[in-house]
């Protein structure tokens, strides 16, 4: 019989896929961004189903919240308009979509047929903030610390690239 779990999974999954497809078909970046947020929200739901409550929370707060806001901000800043068709795009449509569908079907088939046939129940592995934090500061201390550098770079990069460029360089004197 169809369990509640499965129904929920399918529901969230449907939303996610719908959002993803919408991201593709929408021609204005803003719409794409919003549909991406939808996808993320749906995924957050999936995470909850899997018991990763903390991850779900972070997904909503950081990902859907912070990062996507950044996107929307930039879109607004550059007031990107509707993307126009160009010669390259048709080729991409003709080959890209069927190719990708084929690829994903192949992968899906493989996964279905060959991966571990185990199945997971609701909240299979509760990822509470406590345990997660515990692990972050033990096994994953180094990666955790290192990410700080990553972020540092990111900030610096953003500063460098987005700031106003200097005047044109000067010719070397030939002597």
């Amino acid at each position, binding site marked *: 019989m169809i369990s509640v779990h499965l129904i929920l999974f399918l529901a969230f999954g449907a939303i996610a896929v719908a959002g*993803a497809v919408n991201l593709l078909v929408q021609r204005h970046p803003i719409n794409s961004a919003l549909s991406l947020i939808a*996808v993320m929200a749906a995924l957050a739901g999936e995470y909850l189903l899997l018991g990763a409550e903390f*991850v779900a929370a972070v997904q909503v707060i950081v990902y859907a919240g912070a990062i996507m806001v950044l996107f929307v901000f930039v879109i607004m800043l550059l007031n*990107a308009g509707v993307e126009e068709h160009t010669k390259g795009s048709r080729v991409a449509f003709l080959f890209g979509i069927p190719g990708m569908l084929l690829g994903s079907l192949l992968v899906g088939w493989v996964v279905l047929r060959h991966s571990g046939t185990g199945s997971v129940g609701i909240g299979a592995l509760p990822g509470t903030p406590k345990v997660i934090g515990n692990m972050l500061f033990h096994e994953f201390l180094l990666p955790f610390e290192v990410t700080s550098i990553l*972020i540092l770079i990111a900030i610096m990069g953003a500063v460098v690239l987005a700031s106003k460029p200097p005047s044109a360089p000067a010719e070397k004197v030939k002597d």
Partner: protein
Amino acid sequence: MVPLSYYLVLSGILFACGVTGFLIKRNIISIFMSIELMLNGVNLSFVAFAAHWQLLSGQIFVFFVMVVAAAEAAVGLAIIIAVYRTRETLNVDQVNLLKL
């Protein structure tokens, strides 16, 4: 009880959508968002596998991915701004000074 493979298929579909988006979108920002979509797909499979193996590390990875995503977003958007400054366009097909 939901078979693990369902989750995997879902993540696969999302990933594929991301790839497709990268190929067919022309607005640089949309393309970038497709990448985010791919990452999300990956995250899902991480969490799913975590549940499957009863290993929290799987969930931890998602954080790292998110951090990376954040960093990429920051840098990426900065780059996009820089490009826009020099080229006044966001259409990737017109960003082709370098070729052959």
